[in-house]
């Protein structure tokens, strides 16, 4: 089975990381609402002061981890799989660590309504500390009645021990935190799930439960088996209930909270401390003295490595998170964020074994916690059979990496699934967009036809009337001429009036230049193809980096395929709209092609970011 390597970081005691001269605090550290800064450069802030928030109820504000002065609010690289920069507040600490006024709820929590507690948790900036960083207040607003609160102390990823250490030190606080949550949720039961490789933490919890007996809380020790800590798998393990695909734990009457989150809630309620620090495991064979540190959010990683004795001689990868689901960082000048549970430095690996063909041995299927058939999904992913991949429930894959780990052919299965998932999503979005565009185009054509018909009818009627009139007045020459003139003028005026609103529409503009209509879509198609090619080439460049022994032809073909597909798509779209109404003023094809190009661009950007995003 998976070796746990946990002893490594448990050999040194928990300590507090030194206060760094500068803290870089990303504005966005959670799912949900986008935070905007509440401070300006030059402001002095106190420890625990709210410095960024959003109006979205799903969200979590950001607080100053220490006292000092805001020196910058700008884009900086943050620890994210995409490696892209994002808005950050930089705080120069003053060394005094002066707290802002805190107003802890204290023991009154048992009398307060749930909504007040929930609001306090949101205001305290608390998010899930297990790695997903989902706003806790939202998770504590279940859509269904909850009978069981599950506390996730599994920590199944190898190397990581921060929850273990936290539990050993703060078991009493955690039990109090559970009481707060049970009251908030009105749930009658709580199960603490913990793996049997944490005997000290288990003892601590048992002592805490003995000191303060609470028959609502049950401690369940489960065998060490990755990925038991995955939410849905844990619920099944502890309660036997299976969260339906696409559903939430609340669907089966359960809410899950990471044990670190419970401690953070305790600190907030009892001490008034917002979430400004967390325990981080600094470990791996590439670090001299692996340990667990209490770290302020925003502390640069290199300072933590230094606090742990620096790097060993031959370092390979710098990983945020565990070896199974973490993501690599290119350098250590990045801050710790709320979701950072572990910094893992691996030794330089001699050589990655070459990938060989899948023999469908089924080792992956045997270990898949989602009970998927990875071997079949690989087949469909490779051949681009998206419907079959979906039918084999590709989207139930939690990207835990078990299949990859056991694969005797060394196939990067999870990479294939991530890629196919994003392909399918993009295609579905495109199709939805195309459908809307088609509907809009058709209704516009209908509208215009109706208008034209109406005009025609009116003109015909007028003409008839006029002819009738002319017949009647055929002796009176002068009046006749005048009448014709007048009628023509009226018709012209009416026509102008009808055309006028159309002129204001950008739609009719290309009509003035009818020769323009073919080149534009073609250029757009070409543009889309070029963009796709660039994108694919970039991907190809990236993938050899990720797997240097990988053979070149595959990415190249993938690049060509992507480019060709984009071109085909764009051309088809252009053709479609052109052929629907060949006499049309060329606006539609142009917009369609442009849309395709824009979609390709959007997609490219999105894929770039999503390709790197680790499973959360």
């Amino acid at each position, binding site marked *: 089975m998976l070796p746990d390597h946990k002893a490594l970081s448990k050999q040194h005691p928990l300590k507090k990381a030194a206060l760094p001269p500068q803290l870089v605090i990303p504005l966005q550290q959670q799912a949900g609402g986008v935070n905007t800064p509440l401070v300006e450069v030059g402001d002095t802030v106190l420890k625990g002061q709210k410095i960024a928030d959003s109006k979205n109820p799903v969200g979590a504000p950001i607080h100053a981890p220490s006292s000092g002065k805001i020196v910058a609010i700008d884009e900086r690289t943050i620890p994210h799989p995409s490696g892209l920069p994002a808005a950050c507040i930089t705080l120069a600490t003053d060394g005094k660590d002066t707290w802002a006024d805190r107003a802890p709820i204290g023991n009154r929590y048992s009398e307060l309504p749930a909504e007040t507690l929930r609001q306090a948790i949101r205001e305290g900036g608390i998010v899930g500390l297990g790695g997903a960083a989902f706003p806790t207040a939202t998770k504590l607003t279940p859509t269904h009645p909850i009978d069981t609160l599950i506390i996730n102390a599994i920590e199944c990823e190898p190397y990581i021990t921060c929850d273990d250490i936290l539990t050993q030190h703060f078991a009493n606080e955690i039990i109090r935190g559970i009481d707060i949550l049970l009251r908030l949720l009105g749930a009658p039961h709580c199960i603490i799930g913990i793996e049997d490789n944490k005997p000290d933490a288990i003892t601590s919890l048992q002592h805490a439960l003995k000191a303060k007996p609470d028959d609502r809380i049950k401690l369940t020790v489960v065998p060490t088996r990755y990925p038991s800590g995955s939410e849905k798998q844990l619920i099944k393990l502890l309660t036997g209930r299976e969260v339906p695909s696409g559903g939430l734990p609340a669907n089966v009457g359960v809410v899950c909270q990471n044990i670190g989150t419970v401690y953070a809630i305790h600190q907030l309620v009892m001490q008034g401390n917002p979430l400004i620090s967390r325990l981080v495991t600094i470990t791996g064979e590439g670090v001299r003295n692996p340990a667990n540190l209490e770290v302020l959010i925003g502390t640069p990683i290199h300072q933590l490595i230094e606090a742990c004795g620096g790097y060993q001689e031959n370092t390979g990868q710098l990983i945020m998170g565990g070896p199974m689901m973490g993501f690599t960082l290119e350098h250590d000048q990045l801050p710790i964020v709320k979701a950072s549970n572990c910094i893992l430095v691996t030794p330089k690996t001699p050589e990655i074994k070459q990938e060989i063909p899948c023999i469908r041995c089924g080792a992956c299927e045997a270990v898949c916690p989602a009970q998927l058939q990875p071997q079949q999904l690989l087949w469909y992913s490779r051949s681009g059979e998206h419907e079959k991949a979906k039918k084999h429930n590709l989207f139930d894959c939690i990207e835990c990496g078990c299949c990859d780990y056991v694969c005797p052919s060394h196939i990067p299965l999870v990479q294939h699934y991530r890629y196919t998932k994003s392909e399918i999503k993009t295609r579905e979005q495109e199709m939805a967009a195309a459908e809307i565009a088609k509907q809009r185009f058709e209704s516009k054509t209908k509208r215009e036809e109706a208008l034209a018909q109406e005009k025609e009818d009116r003109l015909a009627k007028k003409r008839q009337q006029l002819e009738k009139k002319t017949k009647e007045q055929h002796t009176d020459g002068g009046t006749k001429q005048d009448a014709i003139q007048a009628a023509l003028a009226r018709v012209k005026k009416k026509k102008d009036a009808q055309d006028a609103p159309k002129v204001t529409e950008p739609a009719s503009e290309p009509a003035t230049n009818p020769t323009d209509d073919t080149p534009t879509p073609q250029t757009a198609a070409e543009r889309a193809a070029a963009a796709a090619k660039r994108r694919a080439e970039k991907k190809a460049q990236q993938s050899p980096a990720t*797997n240097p022994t990988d053979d070149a032809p595959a990415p190249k073909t993938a690049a060509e395929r992507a480019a060709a597909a984009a071109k085909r798509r764009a051309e088809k779209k252009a053709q479609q709209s052109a052929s629907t109404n060949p006499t049309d003023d060329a606006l539609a094809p142009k917009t369609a092609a442009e849309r395709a190009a824009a979609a390709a661009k959007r997609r490219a950007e999105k894929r770039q970011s999503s390709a790197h995003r680790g499973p959360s």
Partner: protein
Amino acid sequence: MHFQSAMSPHTRSAAHTGTLMKNVLYALVPGVLISTELFGWGVLINLAIACVTAIVAEAVVMKLRRRPVAPALLDYSALVTACLLALSLPPIAPWWIPVIGVLSAILVAKHLYGGLGHNPFNPAMVGYVVLLISFPRELSQWPAPGDMLTHTLSVTETVRFLFTGILPETVRLDGITMATALDYTKTQLRLGDDLATLASHDSYGWLGARGWEWVSLGYLLGGLWLLYKRVISWHIPVAFLGSLLLVASLFALIDSTYFSPPLFHLASGGVILAAFFIATDPVTASTSPVGRLIYAAGIGVLVYVIRAWGGYPDGIAFAVLIMNLAAPTIDHFYQPRTFGH
């Protein structure tokens, strides 16, 4: 300081396809030793010829396909194919029999379909069927078990016979060959004999075909070791042997004078070898657990049907190939339930 970037997971187990295949080869050892003891040096010589042919064919074809040769040889799949085919052949078959068989297996059944992992049919069984249809005489000349021979061929005599067809002067071909129990039973039953009179024939042993019982035991030992090492799962051997036993018992109950007893079926021919080593080829078998049960049960039934009513004394190769054909359909219908569905 700059670090390598990569996608998760960042760690891998030491498992390797080559190791799996090597384990399969190791697991064949007891059966091979017993086979050699009973049927002479031809067993080992056949194996050697087949292995050399397989390595050369694999290397050449990979070169022609402009793919790396070393990984293909180091996955040991070609050797497994060669050994399984060689062990299915009569140990006194001339040298070109294993050569043609292995070439058919590696070139046609494996690489024409795209190489390792892409072949729909079990390469060893394709090779065997090609030989069975093309050279029925060579394929039916089985040596008599050693304990029945007055003269056992030495290594040099065997090599000479396999490569030139010349036997020592004192030995005649029908002196060293004997119809297998399956073959004999089929022929005699057609002639109207009943089983009770046949059972006293020399080709019958204490359980199944004479000598074959011991060879089967050897393969069973290796197969159990493969199960223990988790190279194979229990589904295929259990379903294959189970269905064969079931059908054989049923018909033996109906008419025990015409239908051989169920244990005779298990201990004769290549049943045990096929149940643990051939039908378990993951590339050509069904891939889901339920699918594997159906797939293997199908093989068991087909083996019985061919043995009881078909034109060949043993039906394993055809049964396996037919079920290979059905495997994708079985997989299509027996997709296991996904978590949360």
